[in-house]
């Protein structure tokens, strides 16, 4: 992926974005001043498919698809791992995820995987962080294509596609 043109974000837009982030990810609220310091100036970078990437200097923070909510970059998630609801995949699925395949429900429902209990069930469209069995760090972030309850029920089908995974173009994007 090639870095596109960059432009400064207006401070008013930055404020709205900041509020939107807190609204979408309540888990980020205590950290927001650290992620987007009041004085810092966000920069927006254009990515293919009308997505926008928000950065401060050379730190990538969020990317936003044209029609979706902002999604935190994995490096940010590694710094603040508790910001997003988490699910876990089993070991067998890791290599498929890291080569860019869509995440399928069996990887989550099997013995090594983990889904939240019924009370904390996640809805379709929610942005979740995916960690892996036996690993500490998050390996994928994306929007759920079906609710976690549905996954438990059916046990098959696509759970997440078009996520941002370790080693994809966005991860390797070099900003300097």
């Amino acid at each position, binding site marked *: 992926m090639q870095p596109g043109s960059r432009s400064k974000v207006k401070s008013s837009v930055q404020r709205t974005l900041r509020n939107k982030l807190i609204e979408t990810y309540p888990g980020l609220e*205590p*950290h927001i001043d*650290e992620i987007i310091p009041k004085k810092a100036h966000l920069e927006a970078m254009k990515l293919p498919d009308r997505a926008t990437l928000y950065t401060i200097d050379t730190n990538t923070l969020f990317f936003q698809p044209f029609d979706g909510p902002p999604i935190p970059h994995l490096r940010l998630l*590694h*710094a*603040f*791992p*508790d910001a997003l609801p988490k699910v876990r995949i*089993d*070991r*067998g699925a*890791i*290599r498929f995820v*890291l*080569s860019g395949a869509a995440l399928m429900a069996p990887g989550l429902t099997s013995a*090594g995987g983990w889904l939240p209990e019924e009370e904390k069930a996640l809805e379709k469209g929610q942005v979740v962080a995916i960690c892996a*069995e*036996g*690993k*500490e*760090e998050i*390996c994928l972030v994306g929007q759920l294509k079906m609710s976690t309850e549905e996954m438990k029920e059916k046990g098959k089908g696509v759970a997440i596609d078009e996520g941002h995974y*370790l*080693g994809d173009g966005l*991860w*390797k994007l070099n900003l300097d």
Partner: protein
Amino acid sequence: MADVAEGGPPAEPQARHIIYCGVCTLPPEYCEFGGTTKKCEEWLKESHPDMHERLYSEEALNANLSSLSVSARERAAKDAAKKEAKAALAETRDAERKAAAKVQIKRVERNKRKYVTVISGLEAHGLDNKKLAKELGKKFATGSSVTKSPTGSEEITVQGDVSDDLFEWLVEVHGKVPEENIELIEDKKKKGSS
């Protein structure tokens, strides 16, 4: 496992700083899926021995294996081997291409005693034409732009005859380009007529 990084308790929010592999840029625990596992392991051993010990100890490796069924393990191993071979091949090919790729610095006559300098073939050495053009313009205080050559590839055109200085500058500042790969060409045909 928050104990690896210097993470503060949730009451005092603080960014964790985690280590990324210097070879494949992934967090080291994911190196095994990156295709350059051997190199990653060496890198980790050198720069973060404690982490290496934890991740590549006998126990850890066994624990990794035991969680998969035999057939799945075999498939995964096969896949990993394939990926590794692919990565290695790509690397050698890249190196070869780089070794073979020539950078041409051409002096083209524009108008009797006026020249422009055209540089082509820089992309192969991982240099960005656009950025370099800007840099050159600043360095020589002349116009410098990225143009399309007749063959369709991109090249940098610097106004004025700066070929000798440019040669030295390229070697000095951008060590990535080996000296013997840079060719100086003077446009002979036109030169003969002048």
